[in-house]
C-alpha cells in the first residue's frame, strides 16, 4: 500500500479524474458485465452442457433404434430424412423441466444471489438506480433464455444433420418442405419458446426480489412452473387454462404445419407479454422501495 502516491495522477484529463457526464441511462457496459458474469459461472456452463446433451442423446438413440433402410415404415423414415427433427424433439422434451430450471437458476442469482453475497448494496451505492438494475437484470434473463434455447437447437441441429442428413422435412400437415424453409421454421420455434421462457424469467425476477436466498427463489420458480403444468393437465379447471403461462407452450408444433397455424401462437405470445408486464411491474414495485439490509 503506497499511501503517498496520488491515485489518479496518471489518468488522462477527460473530466476530473475519469468522470464523464452520465449522458445515457442504460449502459451496455453493465449489461455486458452481467452477461460475462453469467457466462463465466462454472455452474451455468455445466447447465449448458446438460441442455446440449439431451438432443445429442435423442439423435443417437433414434439412430440406433431406427430400422435399416427400406424395411421400416414410410412414416418414420420420412421423418428421419431430415436431421432438424432432433432439435425440435429436444426442445419439446426440455421445455418441461430443463429449460425452466435453467431460467430459474439465472433468476435466483439475479437479485437474491446479489443480496446473498452482499454485492447488491455495493451495486446500489455505485450508484446503479434500482430501476436501471432491474431492467438490466431482466434484459440479461431474456438473453439467457434465448441463449439456452439456442444451445439446445444448435447442438440438436449439428447432431441431427450429422446422423440424418439434410433431406426435405415432413410437416405436421403431411406435406414436405425444403431444408431451407425447415431451417426458418426451427428459428421461429426457437423464438417462440424463448419468449415463453423470458416471461417465466419475469416471474422469477419478481420472486428473486422477495428473498435473499437464491436457492429459495430457484425452487419457488420451479414449483410455480410445475404447478402450472399440473393445472394445465387437469380438465376440471379448464376455465383456468387460458391464464396459465405454460398453456400454449407446446403449441410450437403449430409452426410446423403447412401453412403455419397462428391462432394458438398468437394467444401464447399475448400470455407471455401479459406475464412479463405484470410480474415485471410487481418486481419493480417490490424492489424500488425495499430496505437493503443484506
Amino acid at each position, binding site marked *: 500500500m503506497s*499511501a503517498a502516491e496520488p491515485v489518479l495522477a*496518471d489518468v488522462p484529463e477527460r473530466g476530473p479524474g475519469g*468522470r464523464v457526464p452520465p449522458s445515457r441511462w442504460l449502459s451496455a457496459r453493465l449489461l455486458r*458485465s452481467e452477461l460475462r458474469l453469467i457466462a463465466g459461472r462454472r455452474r451455468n456452463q455445466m447447465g449448458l452442457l446438460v441442455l446440449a446433451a439431451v438432443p445429442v442423446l435423442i439423435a443417437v438413440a433414434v439412430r440406433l433404434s431406427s430400422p435399416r433402410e427400406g424395411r421400416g415404415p414410410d412414416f418414420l423414415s420420412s421423418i428421419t430424412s431430415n436431421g432438424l427433427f432432433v432439435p425440435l424433439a429436444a426442445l419439446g422434451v426440455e421445455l418441461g423441466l430443463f429449460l425452466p430450471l435453467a431460467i430459474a437458476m439465472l433468476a435466483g442469482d439475479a437479485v437474491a444471489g446479489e443480496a446473498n453475497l452482499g454485492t447488491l448494496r455495493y451495486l446500489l451505492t455505485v450508484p446503479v438506480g434500482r430501476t436501471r438494475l432491474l431492467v438490466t437484470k431482466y434484459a440479461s434473463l431474456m438473453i439467457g433464455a434465448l441463449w439456452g434455447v439456442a444451445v439446445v437447437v444448435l447442438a440438436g441441429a449439428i447432431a441431427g444433420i450429422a446422423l440424418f442428413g439434410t433431406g426435405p422435412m415432413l410437416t405436421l400437415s403431411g406435406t414436405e418442405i425444403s431444408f431451407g424453409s425447415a431451417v426458418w421454421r426451427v428459428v421461429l420455434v426457437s423464438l417462440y419458446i424463448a419468449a415463453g421462457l423470458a416471461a417465466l424469467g419475469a416471474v422469477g425476477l419478481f420472486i428473486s426480489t422477495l428473498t435473499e436466498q437464491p436457492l429459495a427463489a430457484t425452487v419457488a420458480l420451479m414449483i410455480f412452473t410445475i404447478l402450472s403444468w399440473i393445472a394445465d393437465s387437469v380438465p376440471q379447471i379448464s376455465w383456468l387454462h387460458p391464464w396459465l403461462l405454460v398453456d400454449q407452450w407446446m403449441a410450437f408444433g403449430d409452426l410446423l404445419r403447412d401453412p403455419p397455424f397462428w391462432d394458438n401462437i398468437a394467444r401464447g405470445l399475448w400470455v407471455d407479454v401479459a406475464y412479463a408486464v405484470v410480474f415485471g411491474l410487481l418486481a419493480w414495485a417490490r424492489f424500488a422501495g425495499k430496505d437493503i*439490509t443484506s
Partner: protein
Amino acid sequence: MTQPLERVQTSASERDLAIATRGLTKRFGARAAVDGIDLVVPRGSVYGFLGPNGSGKTTTIRMLLGLVRPSAGTSSLLGQPIPKGAQAVLPRVGSLVEGPAFHPYLSGRANLRRLDAADLAADPRTSRQRIDAALDRVGLLATAGKRYRAYSLGMRQRLAIAAALLMPRELLVLDEPTNGLDPQGTREVRHLVASLASDGTTVFVSSHLLSEVEQMCTHLGVMSDGRLVTQGSTFEVRGGAAPTARVLTDQPTVAARILSELGLNGVEAVPGGVRGTPDGVAPEKIVAALVEGGVGVKEFTVTSPSLEDLFVSLTGEGFDVSG
C-alpha cells in the same frame, strides 16, 4: 458534553456540510435501531463515528447511502437530500458498508471491473488505469488476479477500500475499514485516510476501535443504543472531560489535606498516593504547596482521561449488547 453540537450547527450552514441529518430514525419493528440523531459532519473533516456493537452505526450509514429508508427524519449528503438526490450525489461518494462483499469466483480485478462498469459516471477509457491505481493504493496489485474466494480477510477488506477509491471522491463513508487488517494494514489505512483528507476529501469513518479513531479524526460522534450521545471536534469532545492530578507519596493524609485546601475536587486515596480534579488550579501551584507542606513528592502527574475512559463513561460499562 453535548453543547458542541449546537455550536457547530449554528456556525455552518447545510451547504458547507458533507453530511447533515435531522432527527434521523430507523425502527425495526418496535425497536429503534437509530433514534433521532442529528449528525453534523463539516466538509474536509475526518469524522470518527464511534459506538459499541449494535449501537446503530451501520444502520445510520445505510440510511445515508439510500439503502434503507428512514422511519423518520431527513438527511443530506454534500448538500443533496437523500434518498431523492442519491443518484446525483453518490458518484462523488465512495463507501464501505458492513464489510467487503464481492463475487467469490471472480478475481479481485474482475470484481472492480464490474463495479466500474456499473458506474455511468466512470469513463470506460480510463477504467484500466483507475482500477490498477486503486489496487496499487491498497497494496493488492500483485494478488489482483486471484479469485476473491482465495483472499484472506484482510485482503478482502483492502479490496473493498479499493472499490471505494475507483473514482475521485469528495466524501468517503467507511464502515469499520480496519476490521480484519493486521497492524501494518491498520497503519496503512490510517495513512491512506490522512493522505485523502489532506487532498480535501471528507472522511466519515465508523469504528469501535478507539485508539485508531483518536489518532486520525478531527471530529467525533459517539453513538450509544441508537442515540448520538456526543458530537463535535475531537478537542471539544475531549475538553468535556476533566483532567486528574495524581501524587505519589508516602504521606497521603497530609497530601490529601493540602489538595483539599487548594480547592481540588474529589480528592481520594489511590494506591501509593492521592488524586483529585484540579478544576483550574495550576499544576505548579499544587507542587509548590505540597513541597511547602513538607510532603515528599515521588511523582506528580496531570492526565486527561483517555478517549477509552471517555467512551466507556458515555456508552456504559456493560459488555452485553443492548437490544
